[in-house]
């Protein structure tokens, strides 16, 4: 039938244009990178050592609490965020949830050499040093004990927002998370974080729309893959924590997703009915003239 042939030509050109300007063009503009690696097999981590949490408690409390708070274990922050940022360049994280958020091997590697594990060695040259000193003078067993301790005090369950707050909010704002209250601003004041990172880390409110899930997973797992030389550290999130971070970004940045996906099929069903009636009406009208 002639009309179907014409339709086929129209559809063919439309699809060819679409493929050219969307999937093909984007594949050319954003080169493919390797899948995220949640085992962090490139780091010098625990190397199979089992830690002793009791011993780790003593080590952590004597080595870390000068700078880090561990609210859960009775070590509240010694100063407010602004003072901490002024002192260290960036607000140091509370360690209460670190054992849950971060991969154990990564955590061990980070304690030994923070800049190397987080792949930001390029930032700390010409006399600049990472605000957290290296602990690679410790015995591997001691490091394993500290990791075991951090894991022992970490909560079993965290909400998506809690994960985001602990993993990202020291540097990143996500203002749409609390537009009126302003509680989702970055914890490190703007002037400090700008000095520390070289620029103000972006507000993440719309990153779920501007970057999409896949990119976010690849990027958070290893920022250097997509953005070589970026100041953003690899933070070593477990797959679960990273998924929760992105889920929170979606709750904030695409808050009507569920409504959209529920409403869509209803619209389409209504339109199928409309189309059927329209074709029937057309057929009845054209019967007289053909």
């Amino acid at each position: 039938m002639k009309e179907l042939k014409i339709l086929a030509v129209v559809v063919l050109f439309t699809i060819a244009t679409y493929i050219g300007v969307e999937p093909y063009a984007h594949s050319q503009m954003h080169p493919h990178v390797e899948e995220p690696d949640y085992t962090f097999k490139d780091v010098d981590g625990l190397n199979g050592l089992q830690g002793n949490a009791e011993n780790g408690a003593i080590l952590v409390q004597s080595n870390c609490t000068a700078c880090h708070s561990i609210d859960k274990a009775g070590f509240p922050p010694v100063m407010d965020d602004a003072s901490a940022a002024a002192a260290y360049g960036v607000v140091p994280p509370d360690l209460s949830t670190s054992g849950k958020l971060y991969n154990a091997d990564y955590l061990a590697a980070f304690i030994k050499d923070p800049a190397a594990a987080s792949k930001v060695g390029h930032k700390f040259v010409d006399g600049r040093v990472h605000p957290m000193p290296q602990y690679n003078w410790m015995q591997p067993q001691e490091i394993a004990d500290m990791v075991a301790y951090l894991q022992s005090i970490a909560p079993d369950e965290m909400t998506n927002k809690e994960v985001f707050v602990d993993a990202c909010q020291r540097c990143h704002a996500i203002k749409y998370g609390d537009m009126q209250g302003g509680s989702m601003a970055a914890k490190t004041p703007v002037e400090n974080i700008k000095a520390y990172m070289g620029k103000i880390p972006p507000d993440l409110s719309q990153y779920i729309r501007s970057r999409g899930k896949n990119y976010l997973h690849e990027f958070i797992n290893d920022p250097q893959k997509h953005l070589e030389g970026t100041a953003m550290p690899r933070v070593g999130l477990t797959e679960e924590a990273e998924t929760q971070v992105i889920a929170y970004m979606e709750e904030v940045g695409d808050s009507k997703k569920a409504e959209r996906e529920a409403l869509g099929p209803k619209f389409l069903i209504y339109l199928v009915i409309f189309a059927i009636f329209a074709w029937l009406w057309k057929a009845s009208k054209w019967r007289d003239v053909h």
Partner: protein
Amino acid sequence: MAKFEKANSVGEWLDQRLNTTALNKVMMTEYWIPKNINFLWAMGVLLATTFGILVISGLFLMMYYKPDVNLAFDSVNYTIMQEVAYGWLFRHMHGVAASVVFLIIYIHMFTGIYYGSYKQGREMIWISGMLLFMTFSAAGFSGYMLPWGQMSYWAAMVITNLFGGIPFIGPDLVVWIRGDFNVADATLTRFFMLHVFLLPITIMGIIGLHFYTLRIPHVNNQDSDEIDFDAEAEKYLAGNKKESKVIPFWPIFISKDLAVLGIFLLFYFYLVFFHYNFAMDPVNFDPADNMVTPPHIYPEWYFLWSYEVLRGFFFDIAGVKAFDIGLAAFGFANAIFLLLPWLDRDTRILPAHKRPAFFVWFWILMVDLLVLTVYGKLPPTGANAWVGFFAAVAFILLFVLLPIITKIDAKKRGE
């Protein structure tokens, strides 16, 4: 004053005062359309509907949008998208319709070219249609600026910069258009005015003109047959509906349009709910930042072909700067379609498949536009730049050769 008798119904009352019965005949039941048409003849009604969707969704968006560089991004992405009930739906409908309307415009336009519906009496239909294409383009561009994302800002930068290439007045013109030395708050606010007032009202006026231009030459048909509309209409009114070559706009023609519209709306709303990124570029969900140039700046898909003609000329030729050649080619690309009725030297109106040389010309043009569109988005490096160059040259040559090609067809038929 005319003498008015007591009316027995609202219809009669209106008829006495507004002559609605006659109006209805002229506009609807005795507005004659050829019977020998296919679904491509429904694109006009699809366009009118899509424009209606744009106007209505646009009105709702305007209730919350703030044309201020400090407020615009959040008013769209927070207030409208997250806070206002179904604000996201209106925004998606508006954004997707703005993109899809160009798909239908292109189909409508190339249907006209294929069937020769632009010449020998139909020139004004074609010209008013091309004016609509231009005003829709301006509306698309100005609207794209409003969310004040990265692509809004940088597209505004690149496109307003183009005016700088116009001899003598260029640099002053750029400042006049922007209202500032840079793309800034004044630019956003004036493009808001253009987008929500001046352009829509102009478009509505030209749509009226476009409809009117159809009255005297009438709509073309699938075989480009010459029809005696008066004689055929008489046949139809006498009851010989099957023999008559014409149908009334209402209800026969419109019934087919609505059937096609049903399919189109399914496609459109599928895109609105499930596949909208092509029309709402992810890059534009980053707020405008004049300190950070995005790695790839490209216009929306419907401008890509002319954008590629612009940047296809990437090297100086005979002492003329690449930018100036590109700009001249870009001007040519945007104006040349207006002249189509006079570039076509064939003395008869025929569909392309009955014009052997023109048929080849048409499909080469289609493929060339496709190549220009795809390469208009790709990074213009290495071989891509050369493909763009040759496709741009081919585009210009196609129109330069058109008078000769159409003459060949006429000669072959022995005219």
